[in-house]
């Protein structure tokens, strides 16, 4: 029963998105929704490692940027269509996740966190010095003429992002409730005990980082076509990394729905504040919310709701 309810929800959201492209005329809505959906995928991806497994990744922006730059490079070199670019970005970022994980996941969790920070700067330096994709000056991407049966290119990108987001939600939910997910939760709660109980911790952690990296690459691949100009500073923006951490932390990390709630809530709030107040202030608010939630409500919104419901039942 529960499984079918979930898939009905997914189908309803998809059809709702399709209907929205027919009804809405203002392009701004699609731009805003694209940004929110992109952040949602990043939050879900971060949570697969951070929330389920308990390892902090500070380099989300690097995976995102590598996804974007893989798309730029392959688009320039071979002119591949967008779906293939997304697959390529997923493969490249998944391999980077696997590599960083292999180097550091055998050590204490702290080293992994610091290594991801380090990786972000190393990759940014490489891209800045790589003139083929524009180097420090950045790269311009021409928006393709073809936008299928949609009224405009941004509408198509919005639907693409919606499908990718729904796919991420499904993967994350599957991971959370599967045998694999229980293994990851065991690692998070007590790694030594998990190892002793026969959980193949290193292999599970590597699967987890690889999926995370691939998903972040997927979120980054359509980005060049969305903004049409990418430079290292904007692609490796710290704000992307902060959002990817703040959204799951605010929503709640233990359950798959947590990052989705956090991303939709914080993402919409950011759009409203950016339009009505200022974009700098909105950056500050996310930072403050992150620190407040971690200190006062470490289980996030999901945790707060669960506590409330439990109290009522008693």
């Amino acid at each position: 029963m529960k499984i079918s309810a979930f898939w009905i929800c997914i189908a309803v959201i998809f059809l709702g998105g399709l209907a929205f492209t027919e009804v809405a005329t203002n392009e701004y809505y699609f731009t805003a929704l694209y940004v929110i959906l992109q952040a949602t995928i990043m939050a879900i991806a971060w949570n697969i490692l951070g929330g389920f497994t308990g390892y902090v990744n500070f380099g989300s922006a690097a995976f995102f940027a590598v996804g974007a730059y893989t798309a730029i490079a392959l688009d320039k070199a071979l002119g591949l269509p967008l779906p293939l670019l997304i697959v390529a970005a997923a493969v490249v970022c998944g391999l980077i996740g696997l590599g960083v994980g292999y180097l550091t996941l055998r050590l204490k969790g702290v080293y992994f966190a610091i290594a991801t920070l380090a990786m972000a700067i190393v990759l940014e330096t490489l891209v800045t010095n790589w003139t083929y994709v524009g180097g420090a000056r950045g790269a311009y991407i021409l928006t393709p003429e073809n936008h299928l049966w949609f009224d405009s290119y941004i509408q198509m990108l919005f639907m693409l992002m919606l499908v990718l987001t729904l796919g991420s939600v499904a993967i994350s939910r599957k991971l959370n409730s599967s045998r694999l997910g229980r293994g990851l939760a065991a690692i998070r709660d007590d790694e030594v005990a998990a190892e002793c109980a026969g959980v193949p911790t290193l292999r599970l952690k590597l699967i987890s980082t690889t999926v995370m990296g691939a998903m972040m690459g997927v979120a980054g691949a359509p980005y060049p076509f969305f903004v049409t100009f990418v430079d290292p500073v904007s692609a490796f923006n710290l704000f992307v990394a902060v959002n990817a951490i703040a959204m799951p932390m605010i929503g709640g990390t233990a359950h798959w729905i947590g990052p989705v709630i956090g991303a939709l809530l914080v993402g919409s709030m950011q759009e409203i504040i950016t339009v009505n107040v200022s974009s700098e202030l909105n950056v500050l608010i996310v930072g403050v919310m992150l620190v407040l939630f971690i200190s006062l409500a470490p289980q996030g919104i999901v945790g707060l709701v669960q506590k409330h419901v439990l109290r009522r039942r008693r």
Partner: protein
Amino acid sequence: MLSLDLFANAIVAGVLLGGFYAAVAIGLAIAFGQLDIVNIAHPAFVIVGSYIAYIVNTHFGLDPVLIGVLVAPVFFLVGVGIYRIYYAAFERTGQESLSGLAFFFGLMFIIEVVLILVYGVDYRLVRAGYIGETIEVGFVGIPLRMLVPFVVAITCTSAIYLYLSRTFTGRAILAVAQDRLALQLMGADPVRIKQFAFGLAIATTAIAGSLLIIIGPVEPSVGRLYIGRVFAIVVLGGMGSISGMFIAALILGIVETLVATFMGPSWAPAVAFGLLLLTLAVRPAGLLGR
């Protein structure tokens, strides 16, 4: 290509830079190496120190180093306050690994954004008589804006080294890392010792910040580059070993200057992080690891 005087100049500049790096990293060697507090916001506090030096220097014309020393006690109190929050919210409940990391990450982000909101992203600098002067020794030029931070950094590092190895409180700080329970049995309160040590670690950033702005102009996001540098130095030095940290700082300073001289400055930021990844992959215990 590889001319001798260029090489000699790069080595001297690297040693001076490395000495300064030691002053930036020593606070983290205490916080991360001894207390197991992964203070990612450490470089952000250094930048705050730089901005305080900039503000006081432009208004009252005081010497930046003097400002750093005067502000250090205030930073000490801030550090004590942060440790209290950290202890109450994370360490006591055993959640320091995930939530503690994210807490300091958020703190770093808030500091950076507030500085940008108040002062913008323009580069700020200080004025002092010795900035701009250079001593010539043979064909090697030693700029005083590098030499002064180097001397202050050496003094600061030696003082902390002596403090940790000679005094009762200093030894208690070293003991916290090794055996908490034994320290408790000796009649010292580990939480108070850690609180004091973390205050000390943050106090060093006031001085490091004033040195940073003597070396060159500072803007809020400069701190991010220092995350890799300080962690590379502390990990390479062997987590909490002050002498190992100093050697690692010199190594990083020299390698970074050589890379900047012979490959171009745009590659220099990757050196620290490359060194860090290499250390983690090959010898996680560091040079003088326990």
